[in-house]
């Protein structure tokens, strides 16, 4: 596990066995981050969903079929050696950066020149390009949050782990003369999930719940064999779910990949 200079690495553990794919996290994220809605949202190439909930199934015939859901925010990769985040390494405009203090991969839309290298580099489809200006007609701009700037066409955007909430928590901690506690900084999706399937905190801090959860024998990460060293862990007791988290061939045995190793 790589860590940032401060030793903090924010991350998530998502319990797939608790997720029912209701989409509350996704809508909470949209409302927190002023994500726009296009007149046609069935075109998923153009549709922007920072936290998309994917549905998978076990490919078994009736009546052994099962489905499961993978909520997928930005995975906030650290890269193999802790400093090779796929998108950050290709951005020519320094519009995206991995924060050494928190391990959060940022996105600064106003710096983005819209080249979309990062979109191509991201193995998780977590980055979205604004192909259009988003309309906010007929009063839909009224509930926009003043804490996250709406984006215009031509720039890339993605999940920031609600970084503005971290900034707010940090300001508050500074004023109070304390440090940012686990409860002070939680993402919108974590708070929204009615099953408590998402747990958020500092992966390196033993006092935070995620520290223990990520060590579960049922914990895994998406496409772990790419050594992207993500900050988002998933948990499931079902082996078929864990197998689909990476491109296992049918004869391959499910193995826990040690994160942080070289290519």
């Amino acid at each position, binding site marked *: 596990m790589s860590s940032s200079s401060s030793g903090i690495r924010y991350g998530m553990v998502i319990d797939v066995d608790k997720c029912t794919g209701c989409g509350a996290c996704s*809508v909470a994220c949209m409302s927190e981050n002023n994500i726009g809605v296009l007149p046609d949202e069935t075109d998923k190439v153009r549709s922007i969903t920072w936290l998309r909930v994917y549905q998978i199934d076990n490919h078994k015939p*009736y009546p052994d079929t099962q489905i499961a859901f993978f909520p997928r925010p930005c995975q906030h990769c650290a890269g193999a050696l802790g400093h090779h985040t796929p998108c950050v390494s290709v951005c020519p405009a320094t519009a995206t950066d991995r924060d050494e203090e928190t391990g959060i991969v940022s996105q600064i839309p106003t710096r983005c020149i819209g080249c979309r290298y990062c979109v191509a580099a991201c193995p998780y489809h977590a980055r979205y390009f604004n192909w259009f200006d988003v309309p906010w007609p007929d009063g839909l701009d009224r509930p926009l949050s003043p804490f996250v700037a709406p984006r215009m066409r031509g720039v890339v955007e993605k999940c920031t782990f609600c970084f503005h909430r971290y900034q707010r928590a940090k300001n508050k901690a500074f004023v109070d003369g304390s440090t940012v506690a686990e409860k002070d900084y939680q993402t919108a999706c974590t708070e929204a999930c*009615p099953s408590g399937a998402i747990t958020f905190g500092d992966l390196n801090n033993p006092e935070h719940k995620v520290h223990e959860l990520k060590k579960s024998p049922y914990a895994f990460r998406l496409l772990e064999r790419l050594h992207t060293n993500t900050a988002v862990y998933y948990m499931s007791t079902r082996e078929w779910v864990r197998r689909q988290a990476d491109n296992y061939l049918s004869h391959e045995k499910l193995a826990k990949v040690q994160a942080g190793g070289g290519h």
Partner: protein
Amino acid sequence: MNWDRRAFVKFAVGAVVGLQASPLVPKLMDDVAIWTQNWSWVPDPETGSVAFAKSINPDTLTGVKTRLVKARLSGKRVIRVEGDPEHPLSQGGVIAADASVPQKAYYNAMRADAPMMRKEGVRGRVPAAEALKKVAEKLGELAKAGKASQVAIIADDPYSVTGEMLMRLAAAYGTPNLVFMPSAKQTLALAGQLLFGQNNIGFDLLNSSYTISFGTPLLEGFGAPVATRKAFAAWRKDPMNRATLVQVEPRSSVTASQADLWLACKPGTEGVMAFAIANLIIQSGQADSAVASAAGFDQFKAMLAGMYGLDKASQDTGVSAAKIKAVAEGFMKAPKAVAVCGPGNSGDPGRLFDFMAVLALNAVKGNLGKPGGVVLRENLPWKALGEPMAMPKTPSLDGSDDRIMGLDNAYDLAVAALSGKPYPLEALIVVGCNPAFSGPQAKVMQKLIDQIPFVVSVSEYLDETALMADVVLPAASFLECWGDCATPYGASQAFYGVHQPLIGIFPQAKSQGDWVLALAKELGGKAAAALPFADTKAALAARTAAMGGLDALAKKGYWMQAKPAYGFAFKTASGRLELTPQGLGGKLPVPAACIAPSKERPLLMAGIPSLRTGAGQQPLSPYQIKILDNVTLAHKDQLVAEINPKTAHDLHLGEGDVVEIASAAGKIKVGLHLYHGAAPGMVFVPVGLGHTAFGMYLKDKGANFFEAVEVAADPGSGLPQWALTPVSIAKAGGVSHV
């Protein structure tokens, strides 16, 4: 220095190196990026002071915290609706419908923002006084002509303050035709009344260690969805020591997939499965002693042994005998086990037979009044809005006078009114619901609304019903007005929630209750005397007088029974459990004739339960449309239905084929998605899409499930049933790749 070739190259290289070293290039790129993004049409939400206010969403019964921003120029606005972790019912967390409340509240294209009236066929905004006068005049004329009973009222929730006001208004005005949208609460109350003499029962899900859900979407909208999910989270807290969940239903739904065991039964046989399990428990001699002393036990036992024996049940349900036996054993052995029934997959109120079978199974298990079992709830300590009022003597159109507990049926009302027998309708008032879309059989309701000469819609949205109405009275959202909501379906504790105005959005929108009161006042006479309240707040104050007063209640936001009450008492006429209820003439409940596919309509259509789409009662917000996957809505406006690959193969259909699903009631066009989890011989359709109102994000997206639904009355309860509809499928041309 000579300006020769060498000098030029030196200069060029120097310039390039210099530029690289200077901050000029990145700085200019940064500036260009910023300059090119300062466009006037990108909104710049004004910041201001932030405050939180608690409330409750009466549609989902989720306790919420609203985040309000008070800005200098743009005033106060709600920017978010979040879960309230301190709320005792939902304990934090939301569903998509809660989180998208601000969008629906502010979106002009969806909301009814001012009173409207149709003049010479054209709808236009009018002052509230004019609209009310028109309605009162019309109702006054009808009453004068002795046609008061020819006015019908269709409303959403009988337990809300508006529901009670409408009951008083209908009685005072003189119409027996007040119907509420059908709900599983009615079926459960009826089943409990028949078997136990108790109609206020719930399921103690949180404390259960073994739960069998019979055909109800436990994780996709059961009861208060967030509260139910808290129970589920508790079951899954420790991966090594999980509570068991068994789901009985034909489709691999979310609940079935998250369950530890899925019993994939044939459609409509959930009740049979409950009786089969009860039979196995009785046969093993482990039935509870209260059951052995129940009225009609011998008859019950013989019936179970004869009709629901393991082999026969296995054949009838299509589930292997070994699986049924394993579940029966697990259920019996578990110290805290509960069998749960509830609304069907498309929000239908469930079959009485199934509910009675499930409650009887709980009785056989002996979990009545025990932790983790079926519990009795306290009655809400609310007070009536006035003295009880005599109901008009004219028989009601829906035939509810002849039914046990007088359960009403909006569909039967529509059919009778359309046929004009025994009498037609002259006016219709729709309050807080959208029957033109959600039916239950949309085409029939549309025909009814179209045929009735005078239609009034009291609605938050300019929905399909409001668009057809002669007068639209704009209702306020729960963020804008006083209102209440009562115990959700199946909850183990009695609950009462109050919401109050937090923000003004549309000045002319009032609470539904305020419109009812204003109308009563305008009508004068008995109606005004029956509802002597200045506004909904005053009515709520009277209703909640025994709950510590409205002010204290509003501050807290809710009243809730402290903890589930354990202990059980039978209040039947015999004072015992009645397995052959007197309410059914001392007979055993019999299953409804199974809706059988015919040669003409060889498939059965059912709804897909989902918290993303809801059950069609409330419109979706733009954000909710955004989270629909392409197995629900694809290619801009194509609704996607699920079918088993084998069934599709037999019908020569493939993935992405565009087909027409036709029932006796209507047809819809959908794209097909081959899904192994769909039961063979069935087609599963998402519910809640296919609106013809609500603006560009929702209008014309998909097709309306309720337009293909064929409603039948449940032989036990008389409530409308639409869980299964026989349909045919034919290619409609075109292929869309899902």
